[in-house]
């Protein structure tokens, strides 16, 4: 049985002002898998990622045409709820961006803004549980359980990034978008996060942008190769790496440019 499609993209064009950043991109992203997006700088992979949870809306002068469907309904439909979309499709950024508050408050941020737990004792316990579970899922609980109420900015870069992952998980999303989540981290932190991805894909659909070809090879189930705003090749990881259909993919993967 083929895996269910979580996000379906067809004929996606995107312009920043008069510059076209994406050209007729089409891809079906499978549920509970890791899709890696690779390609040289400025090829459109991050732009594509940021289209999926409509973070590009924040940039002035962006124009989008084409279809992006999340679980069968268009995310650009007039009635589409962007807040709900971003709750369902969480995002981890290139640079760890914890808020200048405690570890606990960082993770509790999402549940709090989405309104459920109040200050009642039962709700506080529920919030404690969400925070603990999210940190556990992000493989960070052991390292921070004694300093939950210390400033998050005191953590190391790798811990901060896992905190950002925990912060997203606390909202109980369905899809995780990751924009080069390990490019600012040392090798040990990187491997921790890669191991974490293996765990997370059992429950979440993950789309990850990476500059690191080995990383794409190690963690992903499918790879999309972007070049000049086009999705040149999109196929299972093994095929892309060992039997690329497009000459440009082959050239990029064998390190002839990029």
């Amino acid at each position, binding site marked *: 049985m083929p895996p269910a499609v979580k996000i379906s993209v067809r004929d996606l064009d995107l312009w920043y002002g008069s510059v076209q950043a994406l050209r007729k991109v089409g891809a079906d992203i499978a549920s509970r898998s890791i899709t890696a997006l690779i390609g040289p700088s400025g090829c459109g992979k991050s732009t594509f990622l940021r289209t999926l949870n409509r973070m590009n809306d924040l940039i002035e002068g962006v124009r989008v045409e084409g279809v992006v469907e999340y679980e069968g309904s268009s995310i650009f439909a007039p009635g589409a709820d962007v807040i709900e979309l971003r709750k369902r499709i969480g995002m981890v950024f290139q640079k760890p961006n914890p808020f200048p508050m405690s570890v606990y408050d960082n993770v509790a941020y999402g549940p709090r803004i989405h309104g459920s737990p109040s200050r009642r004792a039962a709700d506080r316990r529920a919030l404690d549980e969400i925070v603990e579970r999210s940190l556990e899922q992000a493989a960070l609980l052991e390292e921070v359980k004694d300093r939950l109420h210390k400033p998050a*900015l005191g953590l190391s870069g790798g811990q901060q990034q896992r905190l950002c992952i925990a912060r997203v998980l606390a909202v109980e999303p369905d899809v995780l978008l990751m924009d080069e989540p390990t490019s600012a981290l040392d090798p040990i932190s990187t491997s921790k996060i890669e191991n974490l991805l293996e765990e997370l894909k059992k429950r979440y659909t993950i789309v990850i942008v990476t500059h690191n070809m080995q990383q794409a090879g190690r963690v992903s189930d499918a790879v999309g190769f972007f070049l000049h705003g086009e999705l040149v090749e999109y196929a299972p990881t093994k095929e892309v790496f060992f039997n690329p259909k497009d000459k440009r993919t082959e050239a990029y993967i064998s390190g002839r440019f990029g």
Partner: protein
Amino acid sequence: MKRRRIAERGIEGLLVFCGALSILAVLFITLFLFLRGAPLFKKVPLTEFLFSTRWEPTAADPGYGILSFIVGSLLVTGLSLVFAVPVGLSVGVYLAELAQQRFSRAIRTAVELLAGIPSVIYGLFGIAVIAGLNRSAFGGTGYGVLSASIILAIMTLPTIINVTEVSLRAVPRELREGSLALGATQWQTIIRVLVPSARSGIAAGVILGMGRALGETMAVLMVGGNAPIMPKGLNGMVRTLTMNIITDMSYAKDDHLTSLFATGIVLFVFILALNLVVQIALKRSLSGAEGAAGA
């Protein structure tokens, strides 16, 4: 070649001299203020000066207690902040986060003009409008704590607005995106992430405005009532430290004159303390921004 080097040296020397001049100016102002004011404490104990409300410098048995004026200054300044902070903060948030370009430019221009209006004009406005409104709303003369605070609030608004806007703009974009990507609304992002991240800078702005209010003389003199007594409630007449100096300066002699310099010392110490707090707050906000950038 040699001549050019001499010219370079000369310019450098000139700049160093100008820099030294500003330090010297501060030193000399402090020195003379203390030289002229401190001798009062040989005759009047410092505690009496600070904690007595008896201000009768020309009586046969003169009293030099400035407690009423200290309280007056703090009251007027504090109340002005109660008015100015919520408004200034809101306008700053609006300018930094919400306003359309064209409209925000209009507001910014207006705020800059507000900052440039001479204080005597604020005083005239106070007499013509604020005191009158106050009189018809609460009775009495219309001159007092409330009128002075309202005028001061308007005068400190530009400072608070500017610093709030600048501090909010300095919050790293990553934090804003992080919050929005979690499904926060723009408003939640502002209240829960941006303002707290900018709080040291905003606090510095508020304290800066406080310093301005504390040192303001002319505008409060025109609408404060200037009765040398402890203010009787929020609409009572008030004399601040600055008003005390300016009112008696024209005719004071001997110990009386010295007491005005001593009043100046007290004001100076207040301002110095506030500046210190500002510098500490700003230093902390800078290091906070670096930390937030995830170095």
